[in-house]
């Protein structure tokens, strides 16, 4: 799967994109978020407070309960502030 990070999520992690093979035990966006946060460091900081995070699955807004597959594009970012 492709992971994308934007705004301060990107800054804390230190990269904007990475590839990942769907890890064992990861079924939902929430699982994926917990898996990444457990890496610690910048990931730990970026994913510490899920209330400040939003996610998109294949370029559509989703909740943490959305199911992810290995071929998906998943993005993590703060609440949007455009317009």
């Amino acid at each position: 799967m492709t992971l994308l990070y934007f705004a301060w999520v990107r800054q804390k992690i230190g990269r904007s994109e990475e590839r990942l093979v769907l890890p064992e035990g990861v079924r939902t966006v929430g699982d994926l978020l917990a898996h990444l946060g457990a890496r610690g460091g910048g990931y730990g900081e970026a994913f510490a407070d899920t209330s400040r995070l939003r996610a998109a699955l294949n370029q559509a807004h989703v909740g943490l309960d959305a199911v992810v597959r290995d071929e998906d594009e998943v993005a993590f970012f703060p609440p949007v502030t455009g317009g």
Partner: protein
Amino acid sequence: MSARIQVQTDDFDAGAEIATLAEASGGVGAVASFVGVVRSTDGVTSMTLEHYPGMTEREIAHHVAEAQARWPLLGLTVIHRIGKLAVGDAIVLVAAASAHRQAAFAACEFLVDYLKTRAPFWKLEERGGNTDWVSARAEDDDAAERWRR
């Protein structure tokens, strides 16, 4: 109905966009528009806009289609800028054309409300040497929510 959606670093000419909508069809009687501008809030000197290429256009297209379904529109234009902008620079243009003003105003406000809460843009404010990511406003969520009622 034509809809033009554009994400670009360059500035836009709101007058030319409005004129294009006005002349799109002989039935156009009203063009309502909105231009968002970089404010000098608390000493902001400039701002950098980041977005999620691909998803941005999809989200805007989705809400443009919803606006078309809700109101009898004759044309819609959404232009959102990205990159570094100075105080007073235009950030976004939303313009809606219809036979009468009520539909044009409603569609324009609807699209601005949804751009603010759904389109994947993020603003990084610069104050002198410091930078801060802008926080989402609860008022914007409320403004978008009213269209669901």
